């Protein structure tokens, strides 16, 4: 199953593929165990000393961002990331709207660079240890809570200044296709009048491919586009807003690949 669906490889390509996976799957588990152990002790001490849930959650969220960056570094140099922030002057909190091609998206969102939580589907919330950390950090399990509860929890986070990262396609596309968007996160943004930032990730559809653990060498492009402000979406229906943001992401992907993602 190695390299499933990536076509015929040259010998050089095979060597890079094997090297990347041998290196990553040796180093990443060691880094994970070390980092998570140290972070757990650090967070535990912090919690005991300060007894402040809010500050502890902030620490866990930032630690998870650092962990995401470390995982990206573990795949370097055979997986490179090009990050472009098109509006660095904008200030959080934001609702980040990401397209979703691969499980590596969750790590690549470390580039947002601010305190944030993710909106999770069912299975990531049940991954041992990571799922527990996600729950401690206050990640939102949108499929396991009624919409009203999702809005209440999301609103609390935004009011605290914590940004939210959502994947409105719901699941990984596993390809370059852009699926249709679910509107729950957009409704949350409208209710709280927060800026919506399209966060576009491309080039990682095989890093790893859906259903596989093997990474393929390549370059991933990560782009933080200018925000859609509450003034811009004033009076829009949630449907219109999600279509607008989806089209922004699709047009950006079109510009990168030369193929249409706009329906």
């Amino acid at each position, binding site marked *: 199953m190695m390299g499933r669906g990536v076509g015929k490889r040259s010998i050089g390509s095979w060597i890079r593929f094997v090297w990347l996976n041998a290196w990553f799957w040796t180093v990443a588990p060691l880094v994970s165990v070390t980092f998570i152990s140290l972070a757990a002790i650090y967070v535990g001490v912090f919690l005991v000393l300060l007894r402040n849930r809010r500050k502890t959650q902030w620490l866990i969220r930032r630690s998870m961002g650092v962990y995401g960056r470390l995982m990206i570094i573990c795949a370097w140099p055979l997986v490179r990331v090009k990050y472009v922030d098109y509006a660095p002057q904008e200030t959080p909190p934001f609702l980040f709207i990401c397209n979703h091609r691969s499980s590596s998206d969750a790590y690549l969102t470390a580039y947002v660079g601010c305190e944030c939580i993710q909106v999770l589907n069912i299975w990531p919330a049940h991954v041992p240890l990571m799922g527990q950390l996600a729950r401690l950090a206050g990640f939102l399990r949108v499929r396991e809570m009624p*919409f009203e509860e999702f809005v209440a929890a999301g609103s609390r986070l935004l009011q605290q200044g914590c940004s939210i990262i959502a994947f409105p396609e719901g699941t990984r596309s596993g390809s370059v296709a852009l699926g*249709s*968007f*679910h*509107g*729950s996160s957009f*409704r949350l943004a409208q209710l709280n009048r927060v800026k919506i930032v399209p966060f576009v990730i491309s080039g990682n559809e095989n890093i790893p491919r859906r259903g596989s653990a093997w990474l393929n060498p390549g370059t991933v492009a990560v782009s933080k586009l200018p925000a859609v402000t509450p003034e811009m979406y004033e009076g*829009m*229906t*949630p*449907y*219109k807003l*999600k*279509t607008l943001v*989806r089209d922004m992401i699709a047009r950006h992907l079109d510009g990168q690949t030369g193929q249409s993602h706009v*329906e």
Partner: protein
Amino acid sequence: MTDSELIRAVNEVFVDSFEIPPEKITPEAQIFADLGLDSLDVVDLVAAIQKRFAVQVRDDERVRSIRSMQDLYNYLILIRSEQKLG
């Protein structure tokens, strides 16, 4: 209201409530896959249809089987005839 008037009125609900371009609203269009509505949009759609046609469809189990615009037209035509009989 004739069938064609009803269909036109249903299409207007989609244009007015969701700002969907009229050319995308065809009988074959799948409400979720092609028009991009989600479960929350459907709640809004049901409310808009109830208001536009003065019918109660929220608790009708048959609503769950609607997938395409044609399914929706057929359902509302059926509802209208049931109301006439009633």
